[in-house]
């Protein structure tokens, strides 16, 4: 069973935004946005509230008109088309299930509007109910279902129409943490099964990284960083992305070649690739879990070393979170896996060390 559409992989992007700007009366939500989303991808628009991600999604869906720019779906210009004329479907934040209709009729709504005949409607609704694992619930009303089930109905109601692109607007926002984790895996499975392009708007970085093939981090109406989750996590490039996507330790210094003289005189190394095309005043960053702690004068420590004092140590089961105070650079966050490393006590002198390849440069 494959309720998805025939996806054409002819190299034309599923969605193409060409210099899209959206201005409301008193502010600019999206500014000169250029974006191409490949067919069959699970794409996440990630950012804090007010960054323009929902506005971008609503413009693709046809619920908002861009002030300027062109939107293409599979090469076809759809700018100015009403939502009901676009080959996309949306999973709404509040699900927006029709309370007066049964689950069956909710899912069949789009098919009936398109004049699909009854036998086909029954078959396709049955197939998609199976896909979202809700077979047998078709006679119930939305309010008789749990939040997670309503969420699946919303996905089914959109997918049954074989959209070429599925838009998901913070679809898991209303669910509790445990259910959200389950639905993340569920949505990813569904996406892989149907092969439709998913565009997923979220402010939850973990959710985006769990599900998406490609993440675009938005900030102030622009895309700051786009790429595979590992790629943008390991090399966030901007200070905003470094802080929004996971935690980072940022340090100021001067870059010469692939050596950085940090404030306070300590010298650390970068890979040649990370240092490429940059020089002078920079901020470098390192992720807390990339740092290991050593006793002073431990010769086995990695080449990039910073001395400091333990100011906080919290044991949280899988790992221990330390805060290390360096007199020149401030506090560093360090996450140490609870393996056989020795624990460090408050006030102890330590050396925080990490590898050059785990060091990234962010623009100031």
């Amino acid at each position, binding site marked *: 069973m494959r309720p998805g559409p025939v996806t054409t992989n002819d190299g034309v992007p599923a969605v193409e935004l060409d210099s899209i700007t959206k201005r409301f009366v008193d502010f600019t939500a999206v500014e000169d946005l250029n974006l191409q989303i490949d067919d069959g991808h699970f794409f996440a628009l990630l950012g804090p509230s007010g960054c323009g991600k929902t506005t971008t999604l609503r413009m693709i*869906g*046809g*619920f908002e008109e861009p002030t300027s720019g062109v939107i293409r779906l599979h090469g076809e210009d759809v700018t100015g088309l*009403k*939502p*009901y004329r676009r080959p*996309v*479907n*949306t999973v*709404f*934040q*509040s699900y*927006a*299930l*029709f*309370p*007066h209709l049964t689950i069956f009729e909710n899912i069949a*709504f*789009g098919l009936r*509007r*398109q004049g699909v005949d009854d036998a086909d409607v029954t078959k396709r609704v049955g197939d998609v109910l199976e896909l979202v694992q809700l077979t047998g619930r078709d006679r119930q009303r939305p309010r008789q279902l749990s939040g997670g089930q309503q969420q699946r109905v919303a996905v089914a*109601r*959109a997918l049954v*129409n074989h959209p070429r692109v599925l838009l998901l607007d913070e679809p898991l926002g209303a669910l509790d943490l445990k259910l959200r984790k389950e639905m993340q895996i569920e949505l990813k499975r569904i996406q892989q099964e149907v092969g439709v392009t998913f565009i997923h708007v979220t402010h939850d970085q973990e959710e985006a990284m769990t599900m998406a093939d490609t993440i675009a981090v938005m900030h102030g109406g622009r895309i700051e960083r786009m790429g595979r989750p590992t790629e943008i996590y390991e090399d966030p490039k901007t200070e905003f992305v470094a802080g929004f996507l996971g935690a980072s330790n940022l340090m100021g210094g001067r870059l010469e070649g692939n050596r950085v003289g940090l404030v306070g005189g300590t010298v650390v190394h970068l890979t040649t690739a990370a240092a490429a095309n940059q020089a002078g005043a920079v901020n470098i960053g390192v992720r807390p879990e990339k740092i290991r702690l050593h006793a002073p004068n431990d010769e086995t420590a990695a080449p990039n070393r910073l001395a400091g004092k333990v100011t906080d140590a919290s044991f949280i089961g899988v790992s221990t979170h330390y805060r290390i105070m360096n007199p020149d650079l401030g506090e560093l966050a360090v996450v140490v896996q609870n393996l056989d490393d020795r624990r460090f006590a408050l006030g102890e002198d330590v050396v925080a060390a990490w590898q050059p390849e785990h060091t990234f440069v962010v623009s100031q």
Partner: protein
Amino acid sequence: MTAIAAPTPVNPIALAAARRRRRVPYLLLLPGLLYLFVFYLIPLISLGRMALQSGNLQAGYELTWEWENFLQVFTTYRPQLLRSLGYSIGATLITLALGYPLAYAIAFRGGRWKNLLLVLLLMPFLVPFLLRTLAWRIILADQGLVVETLKTIGFLPDANGRLLATGWAVIAGLVYAFLPFMTLPIYVALEKIDRSLLEASGDLYATPATAFFKVTWPLSLTGVISGTLLTAIPAAGDYINSQLLGSPAQTMMGNVVESKFLSIIDYPSAASISLTLMLAIVVAVVLYVRSVGSEELIA
């Protein structure tokens, strides 16, 4: 684990407190029930007794089980009964046709004017009912602006044509009187509709018109049912409009009851006519609600 079930009261003080708590809802109901008993149930029973009596004011009334009293509604007063139902249904339909778009406009397009528009809708209530109806006499008067205008544009072909003392005048008065009662419940129902449902139906290929008939209308049915009942029931029993805006040719059941009680002093007929009208309305309401779907009313 904390115990979820109510703890079993062990000491007598807790037991008494629990008993008191159970009594509270009934105590709160008591004043209302008492009022209904004295001012609704007792008069209704005495009305029922009165309906089966015969006699006159001078000789006194006697309970003679005059069941024929009930039949006269369908024989002697059949025209008034039909007129009452006809005017009521006509007025309800016109009120719905005017009130629904009004409620829709306020709920969906009212924006920041919403509250002001609602106040304006309720403004007529600040003027007494009788005065408002009398004002309509002036509006529809024979040499008035409305009649003259209608004559000019040919809607009233006859040079002696008039609006007052016609069924239309009575219906117009009823529509005016009950418009807020129709509009408000519909407004409340429309206001409750989640706007994302309309976006969802647009997303699912429904044109705005289809979205209205498949989503907005069914979800506003509760309001439509309440509104039509709040209009049709009082309109069927109304007698002020037909008295002030109509002529003897427009008398409704309400007028018959009024004159039987107050002018002719034929209490048994008046009582039996009232009861019959009441029953007829109850039957009509039950049939109506059943046919539209009581599920929506509960939802």
